[in-house]
C-alpha cells in the first residue's frame, strides 16, 4: 500500500480524498494556489505546497509543478479527483514517466474514451447500443432522407467536428430535411471548417442515467448500480439519486452488463462511469464514459455500502477487487443536493464571497461532504460547488423527508446559495412522482415559486412581526455588531453587559 498520496485538486473532493487516506493510514499532500492558502483541503492535509497563482491554468492544471511537488515530497501516487487534470491522458502519461502512480485508468483507456469516433467504433464492435443513426458523415441528401425514414422522425443532424450545439438541427418531418441539412452543413463549415454532418434519432426529453463500474488491474470488472442525473441546468447536474425511480432490477442488470462491456472493450481500470441517454420507452443508449471519480459518487456509496475512494486506492496499489458481482446489493435510497454558491434571485449566477454564518445539518441519514467553513472567503476563480448534502433512507419518500429536514437546518449567510432550490425540487409533485428528464429543471424554474404562495397573508404578517422583534432584540442584545440603522444608542448600550476586553484592560491597568 502507498505511504503518501498527493491530491491534485481542491474543495470538497480534495477533503473527501484526504479523509479516505487518513482512514487508511496514508499520509496526504495538498497543493494550493494563491487564493487557497486558507482552504479546507490545505488545513486537513499532512503536507501542503503552493503551486502558483489563482487561475487554474497557472496552478491546478500545471502538470510540471504538481509532479515536481510529488517528487520533492516523496508521494508515491496522485489522486486527481474530478475536473482539473482528472481526465487528462497527458497527465496520466507524465505520472507514469515520473514513476508516480496515477489513481485512475491508463492513458490509453483515457485517450480511447476521449475521442468520440474511436470510442464509438470500439463500442459498436462490443455490441453496445447507440442512438440509431450514422456514425459517419452523410454523402448526400438522398442518403440522409433514407436513413431518417429508416430510424424514424424526429431526427437530429450533428456536425461531425462539432460541439456546443453548433451545426446541430432538430428535424421533425421529411419536408424540413433538406433545408435543415443545408444550414447545418454551412454552419459546420463556418464554425469548424468541416461541413461533415451525420444523423441520429432525436430523443425527446431524455433521461440521463449513468452506471458506476469498478475494474481492478487483474481483469475483474463489476457494476455498482445506476444514478439518475436528469436534473440539470446549463448541462450542469444539480441533484442526483440512486437508484433511479424508473430502473427495475432487470433493466439495472442489462445496463450494468453493457457498462461492464464498455469498460472491458477499453481495457478500463479503476473507477469509471458510463453515461446513458434513456428514452420514454426506457431504451438506453451509450453516451460517453467518464474516466474518473464522479461528483455524485456518494449516492452509490450509500446504496452499496462501499467506499469508492478506498477501492480506487486499493486498485491502484495492485489489489484485486475484494468482492464479486454477486456480492453487490443495492439497498435503500440516496439523494444528493449540490450546494452551489449561486444567487437564486439573480438567475443562479455565481456568488463568491465571505461566509459570515454557517449552520450545518446533521442527524440520521445525513452525509455532508463540504469544502467550506464559517469565515472562509469563497474565491471567484473556480467552480461554485461548495458542498454536497446527501440524504439516505430505506426508501425514496423517506430520503426526501430527511433531506427536507436537513435543508431546513442548513443555513449559509454572507454568500448566496441554491439551498432554496432543493426545497422547491423536493416538494414538487413531478419530482415526487419520479417524472424526470433533462428538461425538468428549466420547466420547474419557469413556474412561479409555490413557497411564496403557500404562506397565507396572516402567516406572513405574523412572521414579519417576529422578524421586526428579532431585529430589535439583536440591536439590544448585541449592539456592537449591529451595523444597520443607528440602533446602538446609549440606552441600548446600558442594557448589554460591558465589553469583557474593556473590563480586562481596566483591571490590568489597576494592578
Amino acid at each position: 500500500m502507498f505511504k503518501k498520496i498527493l491530491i491534485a485538486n481542491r474543495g470538497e473532493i480534495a477533503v473527501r480524498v484526504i479523509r479516505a487516506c487518513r482512514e487508511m493510514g496514508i499520509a496526504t499532500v495538498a497543493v494550493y494556489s494563491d487564493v487557497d492558502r486558507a482552504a479546507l483541503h490545505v488545513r486537513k492535509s499532512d503536507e501542503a505546497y503552493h503551486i502558483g497563482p489563482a487561475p487554474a491554468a497557472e496552478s491546478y492544471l500545471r502538470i510540471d509543478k504538481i509532479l515536481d511537488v510529488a517528487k520533492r515530497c516523496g508521494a508515491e501516487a496522485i489522486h486527481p479527483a474530478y475536473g482539473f487534470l482528472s481526465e487528462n491522458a497527458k497527465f496520466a502519461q507524465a505520472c507514469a514517466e515520473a514513476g508516480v502512480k496515477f489513481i485512475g485508468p491508463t492513458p490509453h483507456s483515457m485517450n480511447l474514451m476521449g475521442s468520440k469516433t474511436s470510442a464509438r467504433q470500439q463500442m459498436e464492435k462490443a455490441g453496445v447500443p447507440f442512438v440509431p443513426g450514422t456514425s459517419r458523415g452523410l454523402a448526400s441528401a438522398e442518403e440522409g432522407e433514407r436513413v431518417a425514414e429508416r430510424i424514424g422522425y424526429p431526427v437530429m443532424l450533428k456536425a461531425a467536428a462539432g460541439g456546443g450545439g453548433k451545426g446541430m438541427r432538430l428535424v421533425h418531418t421529411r419536408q424540413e430535411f433538406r433545408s435543415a441539412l443545408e444550414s447545418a452543413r454551412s454552419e459546420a463549415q463556418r464554425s469548424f471548417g468541416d461541413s461533415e454532418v451525420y444523423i441520429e434519432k432525436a430523443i425527446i426529453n431524455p433521461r440521463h442515467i449513468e452506471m458506476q463500474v469498478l475494474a481492478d488491474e487483474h481483469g475483474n470488472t463489476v457494476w455498482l448500480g445506476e444514478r439518475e442525473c436528469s436534473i440539470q441546468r446549463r448541462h450542469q447536474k444539480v441533484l442526483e439519486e440512486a437508484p433511479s425511480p424508473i430502473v427495475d432490477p432487470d433493466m439495472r442488470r442489462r445496463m450494468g452488463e453493457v457498462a461492464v462491456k464498455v469498460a472491458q472493450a477499453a481495457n478500463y481500470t479503476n473507477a469509471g462511469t458510463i453515461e446513458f441517454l434513456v428514452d420514454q420507452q426506457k431504451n438506453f443508449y451509450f453516451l460517453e464514459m467518464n474516466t474518473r471519480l464522479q461528483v455524485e459518487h456518494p449516492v452509490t456509496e450509500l446504496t452499496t455500502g462501499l467506499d469508492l475512494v478506498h477501492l480506487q486506492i486499493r486498485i491502484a496499489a495492485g489489489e484485486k477487487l475484494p468482492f464479486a458481482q454477486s456480492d453487490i446489493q443495492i439497498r435503500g435510497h440516496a439523494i444528493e443536493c449540490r450546494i452551489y454558491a449561486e444567487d437564486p434571485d439573480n438567475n443562479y449566477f455565481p456568488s463568491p464571497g465571505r461566509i459570515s454564518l454557517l449552520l450545518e445539518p446533521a442527524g440520521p441519514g445525513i452525509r455532508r461532504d463540504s469544502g467550506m467553513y464559517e469565515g472562509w472567503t469563497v474565491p471567484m476563480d473556480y467552480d461554485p460547488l461548495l458542498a454536497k448534502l446527501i440524504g439516505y433512507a430505506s426508501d425514496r419518500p423517506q430520503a426526501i423527508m430527511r433531506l427536507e429536514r436537513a435543508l431546513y437546518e442548513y443555513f449559509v449567510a454572507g454568500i448566496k446559495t441554491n439551498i432554496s432550490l432543493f426545497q422547491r425540487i423536493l416538494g414538487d409533485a413531478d419530482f415526487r412522482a419520479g417524472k424526470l428528464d433533462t428538461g425538468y429543471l428549466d420547466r420547474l424554474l419557469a413556474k412561479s415559486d409555490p413557497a411564496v404562495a403557500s404562506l397565507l397573508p396572516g402567516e406572513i404578517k405574523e412572521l414579519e412581526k417576529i422578524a421586526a422583534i428579532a431585529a430589535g432584540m439583536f440591536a439590544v442584545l448585541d449592539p456592537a455588531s449591529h451595523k444597520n440603522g443607528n440602533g446602538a444608542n446609549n440606552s441600548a448600550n446600558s442594557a448589554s453587559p460591558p465589553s469583557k476586553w474593556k473590563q480586562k484592560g481596566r483591571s490590568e491597568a489597576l494592578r
Partner: protein
Amino acid sequence: MVYEVIVGKDGGKPHRLELEKAGDGWECRVDGQVVHVDAVIPRRDVLSLLVDGHSYEIKREQTATDLHMWVGSARFAVELRDPRSLRSRQKSAGDEKGPKKIVAPMPGRVVRLLVAENSEVEAGQGIVVVEAMKMQNEVKSPKKGVVKKISATPGAAVNPGDVLAIVE
C-alpha cells in the same frame, strides 16, 4: 428602547417597536400590541426567541447595505431606525428620478463594456459584463436613461457594491 422597523423591501409602513426589560424576558410593544418574549443569542447572528411557548430560531444576515432576518426558511429585509436619531431620517429615497448607480452584484472581474459613455439605454439593457466562477453576467441598467459615466475598466477586479456606471 424605541425603534422604527420597516419589514420588506421598498416601503411597507414602519412599525413602532418598544422593548422593555421585564423580569427574565422582555416586554415588546409592536404598534402598541404587547408581546412577552424571551430572547437569547446562543452565537453571533443567531437569536433564539420564545414567544408564548413558540420557539423561533432567527438568523441575521448583514451586508454593507442590507439587513435580513431569516425566520425558518423565510427571509425578510429589515430596516431598523432609531427615531431620535437625525441621521436615519436622511435616508435617501430610492425613486426612479435622478442618477442611478450601477454596482457590481458580486466579486468578479470586468470582462467588457457593452455601451459607451453618453449612450442612451433602455431599462434592463446590459451595461457591463462581469465574470466570476467561470460565468459571465450582464449587469443591467435599472432604468431608461443616458449613461453618464462608466467607471468600470475591462480586466479590473471589482467587489460587491463597487460602482460600475451611472445612468441618469
